[in-house]
């Protein structure tokens, strides 16, 4: 019994398992999954009410508004990323599964992005239009958010793994993660702004893509290390 090490499933199989599990859980919790999206829509709706309904004025601030709202919305969604699994003991099982924890957490983060990041990306043109963004900017808006929310998810996941054992750690998480996310915000909002003025956007878009690659390649190891520390306490 001890001599034969059981055959373990491949990494791709594990990725699919985590994806399938979290999607199934999300279907049974769809109301929670929708919360960040509703938050995103409501926050962006507040600006015409607070500033001015004049499209000329809104148009100027629309890239920043959409981006800040997306960033806060992704932050809001982080609370549900690891906490349930840590609280019910699933995370301990994963730590002790003999499988690479970094991969398990990356799979979770990817599913989380599909459920909370992707809806923001798809909703953004509608929200942008409501703020006076011309249709010609849609592709750039969607591209920057697709690249940017991915980075936000990975950075947020590192912070979430670090703070998951802290009771009421959501404010701490925001303080930890928001400063690190600033480059993403700067390049993202800048690219949309440039597009609105008809200028080339390749520069900031490439930087966003580079940031995403950087975070996705190194982030999982940071997540795993942070999670091991959190589970130890």
């Amino acid at each position, binding site marked *: *019994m*001890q001599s034969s*090490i*059981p*055959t*373990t*499933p491949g990494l791709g*199989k*594990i990725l699919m*398992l*985590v994806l*399938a*599990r979290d999607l*199934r*859980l999300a279907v*049974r*919790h769809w109301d929670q999954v929708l919360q960040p999206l509703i938050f995103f829509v409501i926050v962006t709706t507040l600006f015409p009410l607070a500033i001015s309904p004049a499209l000329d004025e809104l148009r100027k601030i629309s890239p920043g508004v959409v981006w800040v709202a997306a960033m806060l919305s992704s932050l809001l969604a982080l609370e549900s990323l690891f906490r*349930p699994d840590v*609280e*019910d*003991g*699933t995370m*301990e*099982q*994963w*730590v*002790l*599964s*003999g*499988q690479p924890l970094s991969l*398990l957490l990356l799979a979770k983060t990817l599913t989380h992005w599909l459920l909370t990041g992707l809806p923001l990306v798809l909703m953004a043109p509608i929200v942008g239009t409501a703020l006076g963004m011309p249709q010609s900017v849609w592709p750039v808006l969607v591209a920057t958010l697709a690249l940017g929310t991915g980075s936000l998810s990975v950075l947020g996941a590192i912070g979430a793994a670090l703070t998951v054992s802290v009771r009421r750690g959501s404010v701490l998480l925001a303080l930890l993660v928001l400063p690190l996310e600033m480059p993403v915000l700067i390049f993202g909002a800048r690219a949309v702004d440039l597009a609105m003025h008809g200028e080339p956007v390749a520069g900031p878009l490439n930087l966003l893509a580079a940031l995403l690659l950087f975070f996705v390649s190194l982030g999982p190891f940071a997540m795993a290390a942070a999670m091991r520390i959190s*589970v*130890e306490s």
Partner: protein
Amino acid sequence: MLAQVAATSPQPQLEARAVHLWRGEKHLLRGVSFALYSGELLQVVGPNGVGKTSLLRCVAGLLPTESGEIVWQGRQLPEGRDEFHRELAYLAHVNGLKSDLTALENLHFGVSIRRPVTTEELRETLQVLHVEACADLPVRALSAGQKRRVALARIMLTRAALWILDEPITNLDKAGIALFEARIAEHMRAGGMILTAAHQLLLQGQPGVRTLELR
């Protein structure tokens, strides 16, 4: 120590040597040592708060020890940690079950990340523990004892050599305890090892069953 000479295997599979652990200001584990041989059950006993759970977590690798060694098959952890974890099934106070998934789904996801498993095998194991009727119910709807049985089914399904179980029979009724004792005895006969923290001793007086008292 002499009693261990009679154990089934001459080499201990798992060994703890002078493990010390502080939790905050408290010196919790003061040089705990034990050896676990193939086919043995070691039950850690002692009053509440003495550090039974902490010792189990240390051995499993969830808590770093301040000093001392945990040795698995001759290798001192954390060397060979992933191989050790593949041979380890750990059950904590919490069951590690998702309340929104059914018992079967929970077992499927819990076991499949370690080894391929068929639905028939999952159902059979639930049947062994007499919770086959709960297979397709969300875990939320199960009683505390039924949840524990499903969690124990996961341990059995991992086919790990070493089971580390923290108060495994919490919430189990008499029939459940008897069922589980039979599984433990079977696991020991197959050469497996079990380390538990317990208030109620299992398989008392049977060969290969020992206790370790913490004070």
